[in-house]
């Protein structure tokens, strides 16, 4: 059956997903969604991802008017 998944995020370039609670390659999860790059842009936002000590993901978003 065709999937209605929202389109995946940008392809990973410098993955930091391995350090998080949702590692790349977790069964049942698309690799694109699980291994994001450490520093990204999305629309007018700049994203910085990090992992907490217990593995939970934290994403900080900041407005950035510069062109991607």
């Amino acid at each position, binding site marked *: 059956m065709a999937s209605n998944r929202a389109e995946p995020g940008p392809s990973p370039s410098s993955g930091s997903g391995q350090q998080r609670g949702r590692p790349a390659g977790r069964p049942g*999860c698309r690799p694109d969604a699980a291994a994001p790059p450490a520093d990204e842009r999305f629309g007018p936002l700049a994203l910085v991802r990090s992992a907490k000590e217990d593995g939970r993901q934290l*994403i*900080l978003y900041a407005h950035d008017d510069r062109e991607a």
Partner: protein
Amino acid sequence: MGELRFDELRGEQVDYAIHRQDRTFLPTREHCPLCPTRPGGEPTEIPAASYELAVFDNRFPAFEAPNGAAEVVVYTDDHDASLGTLPARRAEDLMWVWRHRYRELGAREDVDYVYIFENRGVEVGVTLHHPHGQIYGYPFLPPVPARELEADARLGGCAPCGLLAREQRDGVRVVYENDAVVVYVPYAARWAYEAHVTLREHRPSLLECEPGELGGLAQALQRLQRGYDALFARRFPYVMAVHQAPTGGARRDGHLHVEFYPPLRTAEKLKYLAGSEQGAGTFISDTLPERSAAALREAIARAA
């Protein structure tokens, strides 16, 4: 790890997340886990001295991988702000954060429905006052969005499109509109001051919105919240529910809209879900939507 049990009598899933019993409950502002981590201060969930918007995995998740997700969305590092008082650009950025999380969580095989929501006020069970919302990634399609899809089938097309056209035709329940969205108290509102914020164009989700529509949506949400607070000159509690297309099926059915369920029926009185609502599933309301809409429309104009 939680456990899902299926209630055969109701035909609904029930989620048991017993670890949530010990979650942080109304801490003092000095111990707010969503405030920035001040230099030399107690570490919070966000290890930064300041920030704009933050998303993190809920420490006490109702759902977690590989059976869904639960995230916290923090709107600002200002403990005393609210969605309605954010700078307009920050509110618009929040729409982009929502869009980002919808895209990323919706891409996961263990998430069938991405549900963005905000509980505001102790009246609806909020446990942290710092301005924030939440996102649940359900590993199944929950009953309310499922019923909306059933309405599409029953009405022979997109139900929100049809209902929006009716509200625009009637006009009396519309409380605010801009180029992107229309805000109205629905014809069959269950809560006295229930409001729906509906995209004019048929957009299944935030992903299909033009940037200008995200700005219009943010503006409408802010105007509505400020109007709510002006209505009874008090902080107005509500549940805000963002409804979008499911991500787990084969079709992109759905029409992005945001529903507000405020429990207040007067400045001092709450609407409780009692015998008829809980036992029979039928809301009994003592306020006509047209009358509520007139008061809310005036409050929104006053709070502009």
